[in-house]
């Protein structure tokens, strides 16, 4: 099932991430991170992985990362996907 509406998850607090997802034909991930240099590629890889696990093949995803651990990023993206599908 695909993303059917704009949805968000997370906050802009330090050590959290804010995720926005909206319907689109193909996959586009935009990342803004306070640890861009140190973890930017790794964060994009994880976001892509969670989208794949959620069966999302088309969406515009914007992640504003404030230094979140990987488990937090996964949780925020997963929640945004569920909300975008109308499941949560």
């Amino acid at each position, binding site marked *: 099932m695909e993303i059917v509406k704009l949805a968000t998850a997370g906050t802009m607090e*330090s050590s959290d991430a804010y995720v926005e997802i909206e319907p689109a034909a193909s996959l586009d991930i935009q990342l803004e991170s306070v640890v861009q240099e140190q973890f930017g590629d790794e964060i994009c890889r994880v976001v892509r992985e969670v989208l794949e696990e959620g069966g999302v093949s088309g969406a515009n995803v914007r992640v504003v990362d404030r230094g*979140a651990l990987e488990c937090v990023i996964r949780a925020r993206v997963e929640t945004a996907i569920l909300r975008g599908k109308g499941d949560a």
Partner: protein
Amino acid sequence: MSKVVSSIKEVVQLAGLKDGMTVSFHHHLRNGDFVLNMVMEEIAQQGYKDINVNASSLFDVHVPILEHIKNGVVTGIAADYIAAGVGRAISQGIMEKPVQFRTHGGRPRDIVLGNTPIDVAFIAAPTADTMGNCSGKYGKSACGSLGYAFADAMFAKKVVVITDNLVPYPLQDFSISEDWVDYVVQVDAIGNPKGIVSGTTQITRDPVGLVMASHAAQVIANSGLLKDGFSFQTGAGGASLAAAKFLKDIMLERGIQGSFGLGGITGYMVDMLQAGCFRNLMDVQCFDLKAVESIRTDPRHQEISAMHYASPASRSAVVDSLDVVILGATEIDTDFNVNVHTDSNGYIMGGSGGHSDTAAGAKLSMIIAPMFRARLPIVTDHVTCISTPGKDIDVLVTQGGIAVNPKNVELTANLKAAGLPIVDIHELKEKTERITGTPAKLPKGDRVVAEVISRDGELLDRIYNVPQK
């Protein structure tokens, strides 16, 4: 004879300022300071070029200095601490000549020894009389101690006192005396009281901070140093203050009377004095209103100069008698070298201040820091910048364990015997990276933007520019 001059404009000329000279400032008015900006604006207006600024610290309020750098008015900066506002621009490469970082003890050392001559010192004084006797304890802009300004007053070729509370001669209970002062200028305001002293910094309620603070207090309690005559310095961060609170409880419970609290004094140190934990406070700078009130009214609370605080050129300095200091870090490496100059992206956002002076002097110097901040591990293989060498650091306290510098064999045994969670610093690094992941290395610039000079005057490290995309 009159020393009172009508304006900053006039005094700059009277003091004989010329292109290429050095002016100096002290930072007790902290982020509320108006004086540095007022003076530099006047110097710029009068068309001076190539001026060196030797300031004990630069805060974000001093961002206007960036314009003077761009215009060639200021071409050299020496400071002990530079906050992020100015620091970021320096890391981007705004200056041709590298900034010189010293410590709060190294700065007066080099002034006293004549290595960094000052042509005109500008002393921001919350109260002064017409001959220049001045104090930080009184007036609407009261900041308490004037500790960092003494070396400037005593060794600059010309000394200008700038005050917003000019009182009739003689001022009682002065700090810096008239025999050092050439001119006195009255202005409307030397600073914004809101930025000069903070309200009371709250003790942390963050559970991670409380665990660290409790460990820190336990390390001190089991170090063998906590007995009558104990002396102590701590920073103003939330976890450091919580450690002081736990320490206070232990001291009161065991009935220990310490000799002195040192520093940068906060209201919590005043509480410890009043509770009988210390006989005295030795104060080079007041951080909050309670400290200012205390230094004004309590004779046990003593103002000290930066030379007396920490200079290695002094016959002795208070740091030489210090038992325990609690310090912070942005990074610490597996050799216990500490960085407090740059942030995790390499931008200047601080400086040693008294970090390396107290670490060198204290019998036990402790770093208190979380395992990671915003995903970045505190322990690295090599710090971006060595602010304080690892040989002067004894213990790192985190929520994930306490790492003791291997040179401290006895301390390690004591802390283990007390049941504290001791961990090898390499293991602590691995443990942290299992949670955060391993950060990729930062690209390093190719140009030196700052030199870190040790308290003894040696080049300790260089800070490189941060490449801009």
